[in-house]
């Protein structure tokens, strides 16, 4: 398959949490490099245009994660009819113009309506965590739709041949808010679907601490994760690391992580944990030994419970001293969760293990 002649698809997920954008825009004493939403958008639009500029066939979709709501802002397959017909001028390339105006307009209207709603409900909706998972899921659905051959043309589908399929779809997540530990399971599920779709997830953390889950998402799908240090150089970061499709990345390398934080969140309290206890049947992760697995209702024998409980304080002190060791051990927990299959033979035994 000649993958040069085809375009590539890029879905961009924007984290549009007003709270963190406000924090990010504060001046030097708090931030060395302040970055406002407006500058961010102007640099992002240049990046989006660069993607469309590379090939006529390149497709683009932009998703926004607003507080408690995720919205598709733009997609090149079904552009908004009103955005198309609005004033085209002689100084800009029509497709660029369409993307720019659609994205900016949609963000404006969504933010305005959010403000309206929160004023009416007398609740601060703007403080709510952004619906990152929803946006990622929508991006994945979109990728799924364009990767699969259209069902109406059953003839080509039967042959497993479709000329319009775009190779190597990519999802770029521009995140600004920190990890939301409740979203561990949905994010993990998204990662698996991305792997299934052979979609690469790239992540750029623009503000705040590293996010554990998105790091894992990038690592597991072969994408690159970048923590933005020089935020004044956002566009250069975007272009150098996220513009090249996988084929080019084999020639011009892009930064990847040296260390990946593989810690998982427990299913019971949604806390990010260093050491977890994994149900041997369904591989659910818990922060403490349980007599009955809350997910699959498997009962564990009293004896193992006691043994694990007895070992727990020891483990806690041992890991408390050296963090790197604990990360390594937690990695084993998630790796089991990712690659392993439930051991059907252990249902009767009901052993609880801590991942080792």
């Amino acid at each position, binding site marked *: 398959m*000649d*993958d*040069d*002649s*085809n375009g590539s698809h890029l879905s961009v997920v924007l984290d549009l949490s007003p709270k963190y954008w406000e924090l990010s825009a504060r001046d030097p004493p708090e931030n060395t490099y302040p970055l406002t939403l407006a500058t961010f958008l102007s640099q992002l*639009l*240049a990046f989006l*245009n*660069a993607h469309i*500029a*590379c*090939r*006529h*066939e390149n497709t683009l979709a932009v998703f926004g994660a607003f507080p408690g709501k995720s919205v598709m802002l733009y997609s090149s397959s079904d552009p908004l009819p009103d955005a198309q017909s609005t004033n*085209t*001028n*002689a*100084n*800009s*390339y*029509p497709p*660029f*113009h369409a993307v*720019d105006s659609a994205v900016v307009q949609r963000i404006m209207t969504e933010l305005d309506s959010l403000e309206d709603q929160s004023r009416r409900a007398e609740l601060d909706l703007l403080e709510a965590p952004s619906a990152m998972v929803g946006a990622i899921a929508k991006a994945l659905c979109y990728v799924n739709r364009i990767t699969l051959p259209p069902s109406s043309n059953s*003839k*080509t589908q039967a*042959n497993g*041949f479709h*000329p319009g399929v775009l190779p190597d779809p990519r999802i770029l997540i521009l995140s600004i808010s920190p990890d939301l530990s409740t979203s561990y399971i949905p994010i993990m599920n998204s990662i698996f679907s991305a792997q299934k779709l052979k979609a690469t997830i790239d992540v750029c953390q623009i503000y705040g601490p590293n996010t554990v889950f998105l790091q894992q998402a990038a690592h597991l799908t072969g994408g690159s994760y970048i923590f933005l240090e020089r935020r004044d150089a956002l*566009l*250069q970061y975007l*272009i*150098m690391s996220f*513009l*090249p*499709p996988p*084929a*080019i990345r*084999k*020639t*011009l*390398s892009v930064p990847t992580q040296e260390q990946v934080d593989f810690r998982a969140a427990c299913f019971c309290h949604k806390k990010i944990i260093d050491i977890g206890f994994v149900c041997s049947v369904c591989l659910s992760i818990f922060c403490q030994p349980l007599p009955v697995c809350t997910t699959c209702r498997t009962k564990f024998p009293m004896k193992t419970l006691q043994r694990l409980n007895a070992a727990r304080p020891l483990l806690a002190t041992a890991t408390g001293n050296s963090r790197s060791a604990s990360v390594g051990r937690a990695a084993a927990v998630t790796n089991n969760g990712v690659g392993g299959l439930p051991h059907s033979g252990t249902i009767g035994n009901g052993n609880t293990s801590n991942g080792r």
Partner: protein
Amino acid sequence: MPSLHLSAPAEQVNSPHSLLPFLQSQSEKTLNRLYERPSSCLSIFRLLAPLQQQIVMNLLWLESAIPSSTMAAWVVREGKRNYDTALTTLFRLHILTKSPIKLALNPTFKTSLRQALTGGGTTGSFGVPAPKDDTHPPMGIDGLDGYALERWETILHYMVSSGSGQNTMRPSKEVLFLLQRSGLMANSHGSLQITSAGFQFLLHSPHAQLWDLLLQYFQLAEERGMDLVEVLSFLFMLSTMELGREYTTEGMNGTDTASPTHKAMLNDLRDYGLLWQRSRSSRRFYPTRLATTLTSSSPPLPTSTGPSSGPKEGFIVLETNYRVYAYTDNPLQTAVLNLFVALKYRFPNLVVGSITRDSVKKALSNGISAEQIISYLIAHAHPQMRKNNPLLPVTVQDQIRLWELEKNRLKSQEGYLYTAFTSPADYELVLNYAKQLDVVLWENAVKRCFFGTLDGHANIKGFIERRTGGNA
């Protein structure tokens, strides 16, 4: 990773776009003038290979030049060669400024491409949309596609049928002149006949055909005294326009009226089907799909979807018994098939024929190569054929190649025949000498003669003369 090794040669195989060598042959001054327009920069950028695009993009937003070693540090060792060739091409196009240590974009190119990406400026290089026209209904996209298809197929059909003596619609005089100039057709016995280059041209993809003709057009334009930069930038502007929108010729170059070059081009391009005008003197025009897909690599040209043509994808079924079933009612496709297939029956939506030794021989003598026939069959194979692996029956592929080899059974070589030796001893002596020089192509001891190559003649002649001189 095995995939890495697989992709590396594939990238090298991909030849650059046919326009790039042409641009490389232009002077730096011409290119700089061309780079002044954002739309031209954008179009040229699109024609570059993906790796070159990435290099340009990496440098685009940098204010100062960076040491080339910094950029080279990003290159994976296996990709070093690709990277170097990409840089060379960019240097030749004067997109990168010449400097061994530092890498930087040509400032003109940088400014224009930035402007193209961000919008703004007052160059008006993306075409001036015409104000709403109340007197005429707007032209629909279907209508434009139909027009482009009709124009383009007229040209191709004229070429195909010129050999067969059928009377078809003649394209305009300018088009015929261009076809003749480009060597696709030649004047013989008072009428235009298709040449072997023309036959090869017919088997190309529509996109390649279009660029072939346009390249010829550029060369012709130079001779006609048109400004090449204006010609190119007008074409690039067309390629960035929106399908189904009406544009005006006014104010395209910052001037109120169209320049003579533009007027001439409007006329020419209308004949090729790249744009549509209500009337010859109209100041408004619509670009057609042929124009707006110029810079895309695999274009969904209307030529393959038009009302009279066959199905969108492939239409040819080839069986192991050399039979060809072509599901088409398009006269052009039938005519192209007729180049190398002996057609037997015609039905409303189906043409049946078979590939025979004679039909392939006829094609070969027209200058079409076996590879071209095979690649045409592959490119237009019916979806049902795609299930087969390999796509075409091996027997047929091999046979077509063997028929081509038949043509190459004779090899000609220039040389001298040495005969009339007086005695076998003389003959042996000269022959041995010639054999030592390794210039003997053929020998016959009974007839006492041998054939030597051209470059051995002087030595042999000298040797014989020395011998005869010594005897005498």
